[in-house]
């Protein structure tokens, strides 16, 4: 399924987890649980050793995944081994994309990603000014390239992103890094307004924790919610001694249902319901 298609039913629940956190097999089970729980798109982190855009929760997940042996090669295997309905977006840092393969530059990575069926890329440390080569590779292999719009992104930079973006736009709900928060930011409305006339779906992320959050954000006009830290927290907590993996997977599926439910409810009462 393409990303555009995933957003087609007018709202999308986009969960994030780190691939291989804490092990390859656990992580497979967790992602599949999210898929069962109603994920429309899955953002799957390829862990990088210097995740400067992440909060402590996701950073710890990344450390676990790296300690568990995750590499670029294993990541592609992992995606190949996944059996999920939702399309998979790879979220990682530019150095891993740039170094992959024999020839330097993003092309080998994108080629491999396309081969295992990855639908798109999010690269938080790649500014639009430097995105030319990656955009070209994505075009060549049919991948979407998602950009993050911050509450502070304006003017020229916003236009550059608009030029390069495809799939969906990741609207950062507030300043700061990833991490679950208790309130829904007022900055969200303003950010959404700035990209209102973009042709791609708008997914809001950063700090979404509960079904209620999701509902309010969708109601505010977003096409989707991106949820990461609260899910990584569930992985970090782990399960019971007897059935650790099943236990975590069950809680993830449950949380996914809550968030997806919130999103659906938001769509029903939100402004979007009135729009065509």
């Amino acid at each position, binding site marked *: 399924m393409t990303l555009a298609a995933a957003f087609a039913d007018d709202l999308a629940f986009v969960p994030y987890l780190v691939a291989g956190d804490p092990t390859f097999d656990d992580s497979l089970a967790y992602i599949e649980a999210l898929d069962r729980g109603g994920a429309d798109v899955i953002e799957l982190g390829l862990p990088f050793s210097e995740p400067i855009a992440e*909060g402590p929760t996701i950073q710890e997940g990344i450390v676990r995944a790296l300690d568990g042996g995750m590499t*670029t090669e294993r990541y592609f295997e992992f995606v190949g081994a996944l059996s999920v309905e939702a399309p998979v977006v790879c979220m990682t840092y530019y150095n891993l994309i740039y*170094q992959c393969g024999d020839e330097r530059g993003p092309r080998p990575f994108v080629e491999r990603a396309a081969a295992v069926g990855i639908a798109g890329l999010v690269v938080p*440390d*790649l*500014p639009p000014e430097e995105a030319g080569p990656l955009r070209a590779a994505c075009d060549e292999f049919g991948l979407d390239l998602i950009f*993050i719009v*911050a509450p*502070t992104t304006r003017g020229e930079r916003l236009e550059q992103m608009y030029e390069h973006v495809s799939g969906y736009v990741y609207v950062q709900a507030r*300043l700061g890094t990833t991490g679950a928060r208790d309130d829904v930011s007022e900055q969200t409305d303003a950010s959404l307004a700035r990209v209102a006339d973009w042709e791609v779906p708008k997914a809001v992320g950063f700090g979404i924790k509960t079904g209620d959050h999701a509902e309010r954000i969708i109601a505010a006009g977003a096409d989707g919610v991106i949820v990461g830290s609260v899910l990584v927290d569930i992985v970090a907590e782990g399960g019971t001694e007897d059935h650790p993996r099943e236990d975590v997977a069950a809680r993830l599926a449950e949380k996914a249902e809550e968030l997806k439910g919130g999103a659906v409810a938001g769509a029903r009462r939100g402004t979007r319901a009135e729009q065509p």
Partner: protein
Amino acid sequence: MSTKESRDGKFGEYGGQYVPEALMPAIEELTEAYERFVLENEDGFVDEFRRRMREFGGRPTPLQHADQLSERYDTDVYLKREDLLHGGAHKLNNALGQVLLAKYMGKERIIAETGAGQHGTATAMAAAHLDMPCEIYMGETDIARQRPNVFRMRLNGSEVNPVTTGRGTLKEAISETMRDWAKTVENTHYVIGSVVGPHPFPAMVRDFQALISEEARRQTREKEGRLPDAVLACAGGGSNTMGAFHNFVPDESVDLYAVEAGGSSLSVDEEAGVAPNSASLSTGEEGVLHGARTRVLQDGDGQIMESHSVSAGLDYAGVGPELAHLVDTGRVDAVNVDDDGALEAFHRLSQLEGVIPALETAHAFEYLEEHHDDLGEFVVVNVSGRGDKDLETVIEETAERDLSIAPEMDLFREIGGGAL
């Protein structure tokens, strides 16, 4: 002050601004401030910076003839004495410059990362001097092993925020500081510690550090009536290096040597993700780290390796993009010296010249020892810092190695008592 990089902070292929979108406004604001205040001296920024570096920092630092080394090598060896700067290292040039710039920008709060604590102490001093609240991020592992520096920061009124993620060292502290900045850009300036990170940091930090070569170039003329044959500086991130080289770059006759930490070996253990050295210029590959494209110690995938050096200040997996570019274009020679050599040079300089250098600095002196025949007749070595901070490390590392040059420390055994 002059700059050579392009407007967008590229040094050839290196440099750039590889940062999360949320940081871009801060970076853009800083770029504008850099251009106005540092490059154009708006509101007399540069004048005030220079004045405070004189009065608070102790500039100019002397260029001292090293009598014993000169005799030993039959070469005129001069020491550029950044160890005499307030705080004990070149770090203050940059820290004071940035904290002052933050004031000019109307910021109300300073944050910084620190590894061994040298940049943290310099920033804390500058922040106290300029009456700016300051928070320093430092890995908890580093806090535990660099207690005196932590205490100095606290004494100067800075908060020290322990970073508990990951391995609790410099890399994690940088990430954590960037995270803070991403949330607080409006009132906060992030004082980065070397010529690394996204533009304008590499250019700006270099400009602040360039006081070193501005003075040294004048001083060499005064002392010897000519420019030196070679300038040597140790290179971690590369700030003292770029500072010592900058004004000599156009002087083709002056050879420039960036001496990196060869650690225990130049080889690399890809499996373990460990490089037992910090020689990013000699053994690293092009990559993107902490906001800039540069030479990086990384594995085949692009994961950043754990670097190593006996000197904490050189222990970094990247290097400034401008320095990487100058090496690629052949203007600067990237060389390296291993842990053992650095320790020997530490003892040698202490004994022969009465100057106890930082372990970082000692790398440059060991290169001089090994290659003085090829360096010409007039050599300047940048003494980037003093070694008081390294006493404990040197005692331990010397004892492990049984170096013949090291002084006997029997008198402690006779008298009893524990380690330092």
